[in-house]
Structures are given as C-alpha cells and as structure tokens.
C-alpha cells in the first residue's frame, strides 16, 4: 500500500469527470489517461480529425525586461535572441556538464518571452532560469493559466488563422482571448492555447462543441508523441544526457555553435567533433509485441543500450520504441535484440518519426 499523495487538479477537473475521464496521477496532478472511447480510438481520432487535450499541468511563465532573451541563453543553447516576434522555438535547458535539465518552448511575444516547461520539471526549471537573470529581467510564473492542446488535421478548418507552424499570437475563440501557438506534441497540425484558468472550461466546452472534436487523454498523447519521435522528459531525456546524444543538436542555435557560450559547451563540442558514445534512435520490434521503457538492447549478445519509451503505435499498427544505443548500432536498419521479460525479441534501428509530421508549414 502506497501512501496516497495529494494530487493537484487542473481547472478542467470537473469537466474530465463529467466526460468520464479515467484519472491517474501524473507529475503531481490528477490527469485523465483516457476517456470512455479509449486510447486507441482517441489516438486514431487525433490522426483523422481533431482531439482536445488538457495540458494545464505544464508550467507556463513569462520573462520580461530588457535583455530577457540573452538571459535565457545563459541556461540554454537555443538561439533566443534571434527569435522573431510572433515566433516560437523548441529549446533545452542545460546544466554545466551539458546534461539536459528540461526541454521547453519559448515564444517571442514582442514585449516579453512566453515559456512552457514540463510539469515534472517546473520546480527545477524556474529557479534555474531565475538564477541566470540580471537586474531588470523578471521571471513571472503563470500558475493561474490553463493550457489546452487541440491537435489533428481537422483543426485548420475549425480554427482558421494565418498562423503557420511555430507561430505564436493572441487569438479569440468563442469570445475568449487566448495566447495561441501553432504547435503541439502529436506530429499533427494544431494549436496549444494558453487561457486564464477561469475561462478554461468555457474554452474547452466551446472547442468540444466544434465539429469532429473529441477529448483525448495522456495515454493517446503518449502514443501520438512516440510515433512522432518526440521526446518525453524523464524517459528519453535526463540530466545525464546531452543534446548531441539525444539527437537534438538542431535545437542549438548556429550562433551559439560558433560562440560556444552555453553551459556544457565543452561536452557538446567534443561530442560533435568526435561523435557521441550513444545516440537516441527509433527502434522497431518485429511482430506485434511491444518493448517498454527499460528494456535492454543487445547486439550480438552484448549490451548496447536501453529502450527509453516504448509501446504500441496505433497509426503504425505495430510496436514502436525509442532508446539509446551505442553509436555503431545507431545506423538505420541495424539488427538489434530486445530482452523482453528475459526473452529475445528481434528489432531494428529505425528512422524517426514513425509517423510523418503534418505541420502547417
């Protein structure tokens, strides 16, 4: 018997229960893992039409003041200063050893930067960013805002806008002003919508009333992001892992790679010059059996790595996984053996994503 922890509710807790959401603990919050339709149907619906996710557990904050972008660059290798107004970018927070503290989204709203960080890491990220701020730059956490994600190929028709992938702008939906970014965590087109907590339920109800929109839980969110080859912090990324190992070198700004002026730059530079010892790759098990996080990866009887995310991909209609393998095993098509419950399961290194991204570029 585990001691029951006190879970936080998002502003949509009442709606989740009304919709029949099965609530589970996640990063300290009670979150719906699925609704009555089930993970498979919610996943497929997101790929075919539109799915609404509550991601209010994620951390939102704004960074204000002269030099805010330069200040954020002290803890991240992203090119924040080069981010144009109305644009959003994916970035990493790094520690001094070049390990990944978290991944985040940053949008340039003209007069301030808007940040979204992981729920499980916000208590670490915000003090880290705070510690890097000079006088005149202020970090303002936004715990009173909810975050909804509406994702799928049907979204463009029900929420028309001139925004393209990774644009960020204010928008009014059903009379409610939201901060929208055309992005998400599913590989599909869609928006993430930041809204004051007290308007979150009205916004969610308005979105659910739009044609073809169905609620989806964390289960579908996880299978969608895995098929899209997107990392989950705590599974695929951690403080021991570098951006080069994680195959996220693209998130390091070109200017930053000239100046090497970010935490852990020595390690990143050495790994770019010499190649990292291990790399994040896609892994396709043969047959139908999924290989879950923690599964050992072998090649010719020797341990070469570990699965960090794994499950069944409903759109792939087969098992899919991501993990870290020694560089010689990282080439696409390399034959691997996964040790699932003590039994060998044949697999191959595979290109990511497993399901093609369909962003509004």
């Amino acid at each position, binding site marked *: 018997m585990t001691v029951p922890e006190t879970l936080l509710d998002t502003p949509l807790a009442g709606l989740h229960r009304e919709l029949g959401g099965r609530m589970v603990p996640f990063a300290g919050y009670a979150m719906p*893992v699925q609704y009555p339709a089930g993970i*498979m149907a919610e996943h497929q619906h997101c790929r075919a039409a539109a799915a609404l996710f509550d991601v209010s557990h994620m951390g939102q904050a704004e960074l204000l003041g002269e030099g805010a972008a330069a200040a954020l660059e002290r803890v991240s290798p992203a090119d924040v200063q080069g981010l144009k107004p109305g644009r959003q970018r994916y970035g990493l927070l790094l520690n001094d050893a070049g390990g990944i503290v978290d991944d985040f989204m940053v949008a340039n709203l003209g007069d301030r930067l808007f940040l979204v960080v992981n729920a499980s890491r916000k208590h670490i990220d915000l003090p880290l960013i705070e510690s890097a701020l000079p006088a005149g730059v202020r970090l303002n956490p936004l715990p009173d805002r909810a975050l909804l994600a509406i994702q799928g190929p049907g979204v463009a028709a029900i929420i028309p806008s001139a925004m393209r992938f990774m644009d960020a702008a204010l928008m009014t939906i059903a009379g409610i002003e939201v901060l929208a970014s055309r992005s998400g965590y599913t590989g599909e087109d869609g928006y993430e919508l930041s809204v004051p907590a007290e308007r979150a339920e009205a916004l969610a109800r308005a979105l659910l009333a739009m044609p073809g929109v169905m609620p989806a839980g964390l289960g579908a969110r*996880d299978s969608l992001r895995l098929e899209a080859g997107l990392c989950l912090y705590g599974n695929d990324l951690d403080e021991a892992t570098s951006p080069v190992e994680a195959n996220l070198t693209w998130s390091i700004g070109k200017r930053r790679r000239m100046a090497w002026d970010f935490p852990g730059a020595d390690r990143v530079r050495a790994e770019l010059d010499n190649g990292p010892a291990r790399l994040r790759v896609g892994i396709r098990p043969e047959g139908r059996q*999924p290989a*879950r996080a923690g599964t050992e990866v072998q090649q010719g009887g020797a341990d070469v790595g570990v699965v960090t995310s794994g499950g069944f991909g409903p759109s792939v209609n087969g*098992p899919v996984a991501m993990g870290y393998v020694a560089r010689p095993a990282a080439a696409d098509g390399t034959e691997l053996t996964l040790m699932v419950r003590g039994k060998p399961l044949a697999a191959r290194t595979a290109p990511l994503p497993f399901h093609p991204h369909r962003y509004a570029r």
Partner: protein
Amino acid sequence: MTALKFTKDHEWLREDGEVFVVGITDHAQTALGDVVFVDLPEVGREVTAGEAIAVVESVKAASDVYAPITGTVTEVNAALTDDPARVNADPTGEGWFFKIQPSAPLPADLLDSEGYNAFLETIA
C-alpha cells in the same frame, strides 16, 4: 456450460471436461483498455496457482496473467496472436487465454460470480 469461477487477480476459469479454460475478466479488459498483444505460455508447461504465466499488453502497459490453479497447460488460444482485440470484444468467450489440466485440488479462495462482483465493489 458450467458457471465461471474467478480470482482476485481478475482471471476467470470454466471447467470443460478434464481441463479448465482461463481468461481475464470483463472488468480486467475494461481496465486495461485496447489489448494489442498477448504473450502466452508454452503448451506442456507445469504451472502453480498464483504463478505469472502470460502477459497481456495494452497500448499503455503490460500486465501479468496468473495461473489460477496448479496443473499443466494443455492448449493456448493461438487466435489471440493475430487478433488480440478478441480479449476486449469477448473476454469470457473467444478471448480465452489458455487451458490447464489440474494436478492438485483447486485453491480454496476461488470466487463465484457473486463473490467476484462483491470483491469488485470493495476495490472500486
């Protein structure tokens, strides 16, 4: 057709001549969600009541299935390999997992359907 018996691990069993047919309950398949893979024991395996001998994988997670009685596995439901969704569609029929020929008296704590439903109430 004889009445089903149940375990607190959410297996059902049904006597069929000299063997018992075993599967997971409707409650279990609902809790697991869409079943995508079933890892079945080898025919001929000697199993002990309470031993994990099969695995059922949903989109989200893997769960053990336990032998409800002691005996020998005489047959497994090979149809689940190609169509694991049968576990969801017909958990106490076409979604059966394996058959065991008992080699020892049945455990005393097997439940009838009334007892199992009462047990479900206590864990709801």
